[in-house]
């Protein structure tokens, strides 16, 4: 029953996604077709369904020429409807392979000295064993950073994601002081190798701008393409799970699990629950480890 449901919902999502994608394409066409209508009125046409249920016919050749543009800063404040994204980190599986960090850095154009994701070496007390803790923005439901932002440059969306609009950010760094998890980084200088031609969207966080704050964004641009965030797919050990709280499913790319069951059975917890920030990232305790704790793992992995 459960499986059927999730199948159905993912099919529905797929259709929705295609539809919204084509909407952008068509609305793009309305601007661009003015210049191109003279040249070719003939050619193969495709029928597309818009989200409000209308069928429209457009040239196939023109559909291909349009990539899904990143969502505009204004649009990106809304969030993906009907979703509540969560992440689960299984600490028992992490061996500090650092693939998540690497891929995240690559896609967000970050330098290794200031990544969005950090894999921290943790040790809860003297007698317990050390473990690796991948840490990113917790996308809190009661986010201290959003509360203190004087200009609304950082905001909470309906789908649970906290984003930064770096065209709005004034660089006061109050959010960095407020975040108890040190999740935020600042562009102290002009970020290296910036592709100025990219159209900026808070959903992609690129290109980053000097004098503004950045952080892990849960890759909403990937989600919109029906793909998993970069760190999830990059992890070789299936440590990171991503999913939707409303669907009650999370996946690490290989296995898809019930979120509630997983958290119940593996005693999932949120880091520093007592601060009342209500993070959307859950941790599964580092018990029955897959790998021994070894500081050399990262180096081996690279060679």
């Amino acid at each position: 029953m459960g499986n059927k449901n999730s199948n159905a919902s993912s099919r529905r999502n797929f259709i929705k996604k295609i539809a919204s994608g084509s909407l952008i394409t068509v609305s793009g066409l309305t601007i661009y077709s003015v210049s191109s209508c003279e040249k070719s009125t003939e050619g193969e046409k495709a029928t597309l369904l818009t989200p409000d249920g209308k069928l429209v016919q457009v040239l196939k050749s023109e559909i291909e020429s349009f990539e899904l543009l990143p969502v505009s800063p204004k649009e990106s404040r809304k969030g993906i409807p009907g979703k509540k994204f969560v992440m689960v980190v299984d600490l028992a599986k992490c061996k500090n392979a650092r693939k998540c960090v690497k891929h995240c850095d690559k896609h967000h154009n970050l330098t290794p000295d200031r990544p969005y994701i950090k894999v921290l070496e943790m040790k809860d007390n003297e007698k317990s064993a050390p473990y690796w803790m991948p840490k990113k923005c917790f996308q809190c439901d009661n986010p201290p950073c959003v509360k203190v932002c004087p200009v609304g440059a950082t905001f909470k969306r309906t789908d649970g994601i906290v984003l930064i609009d770096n065209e709005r950010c004034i660089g006061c760094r109050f959010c960095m002081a407020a975040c108890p998890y040190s999740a935020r980084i600042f562009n102290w200088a002009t970020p290296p190798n910036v592709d100025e031609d990219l159209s900026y969207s808070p959903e992609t966080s690129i290109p980053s701008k000097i004098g503004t704050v950045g952080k892990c964004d849960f890759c909403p641009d990937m989600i919109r393409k029906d793909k998993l965030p970069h760190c999830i797919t990059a992890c070789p050990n299936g440590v990171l799970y991503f999913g939707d709280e409303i669907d009650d499913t999370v996946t690490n790319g290989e296995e898809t699990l019930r979120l509630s069951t997983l958290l119940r059975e593996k005693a999932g917890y949120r880091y520093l629950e007592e601060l009342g920030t209500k993070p959307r990232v859950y941790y599964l305790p580092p018990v029955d480890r897959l790998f021994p704790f070894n500081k050399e793992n990262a180096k081996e992995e690279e060679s």
Partner: protein
Amino acid sequence: MKKSIPEKQLFNSTKERDLLGHIVKTSIRYKIWVAILLLFIVFGMYGYYRQIRYGLIVTAMRDYTSWGIYISNFVFFVAVSLVGSLFSSILKLNKNEWAKPLIRISEIIAVAAIICAAVIIIIDMGRPDRFIYVFKFGRIQSPIIWDVIIISTYLVISFILLYISLLPDIAICRDRLTAIPKWKKKLYKIAAINWSNQPEQVLIIKKIGRILGITVLPVAFAIHTVTSWLFATTWRPGWDSTNLGPYFVSGAFMVGAAVIIFAMYFVRKYLNLKSYITTTHFDHMGKLLVLLSLVYFYFNINEYLGPAFKMVGVEGEHITELFVGKYAPMYWLVQIFGLVLPIVFLLFKNLRKPVPIVIISAFVILGAWFKRFLIVIPSLQHPYLPIQGVDESYLHYIPTWEEWAITMASFASLLLIITILIKLFPVIPIQELENPIEETSNESKKLKNEIH
């Protein structure tokens, strides 16, 4: 640009000569002093130019220590600006007659300090070009917006307070100063807004003064309390404290009193006002400073005893760092030389004489500046999660020359604003001295009779 002075200035009385003399005569010492200040400001502007060009990377601030001496300097200036309210409100309402010659200088310092505080906070911004967004997109839930609102309110009130007390004296400058360049005559004429000592005018000013004298008090408390909330609304060790508001306010009053002592010493010396600012003033100010320091001392104990007794998690790490760690030398120097010893020394009458007290005040001021450094920076270096996998430079904070240059320039600007205001206007109210208290009260009585 004719700079020739038309005639020799004649004064009606010695008082007038004492209080207005420095406006007419520009000494070489004054010019050198202004030149030095301008030099510092130009150097600071060069530092800021580099910061604009390359970004905040020229500072020593990094992702963990994301606030540095700009912010601690901002807190310091806001603290200094509180002195205006101490004199124009608290001492005035208490009818402390002795404080009268010090009211204007304190109001000048307040205005200058709050202007510099506003400028330094813009310098700290990563995107000063987007400053206008604070008004365009401002969200009232952010403590920064509270601070913007309250600081601009305080700026306006302290400016009006200064201006209305100056007004009769500006009129005197307009009427009696002849041996001054044309632009100055024009300035006094415009600034005096047709003031002619009419009873109605006096009544209006007195009314405004009384209303603002009371209003400025909660606003002054609020500016520093709200500034403390910039810190207290976060989860950082050392900031996550309900004590922070009174702790900041009491510290501000202490440094304010020290700044007044410092200022009155130099004003007295260089403007030859020994018969107006007397040794009694230093004695009184010394006693006041002891009282204010004791209050601050009390809040200091409150701030550190609880956390030091419990030593909870990161709060404990923070306390360890301050008491015996990296910041221990600075912490104990500040607490002993900037707080405890001044209290002890100022209990002796002989040490409340002008020269010793100005030295003690210098220690209090220096201590207060470094205290704000200790409030802002170490807290940021103790986050809940360990600092790992970042560049070595992220672990320490040693301000760069650009930061020092800009900070020195902010001090130079503060002194320059104060210097220029003192140069342009009489620093001790003349009008007050010309109309003895009985006379003015008779005047107002007469007025009241007329109104009723």
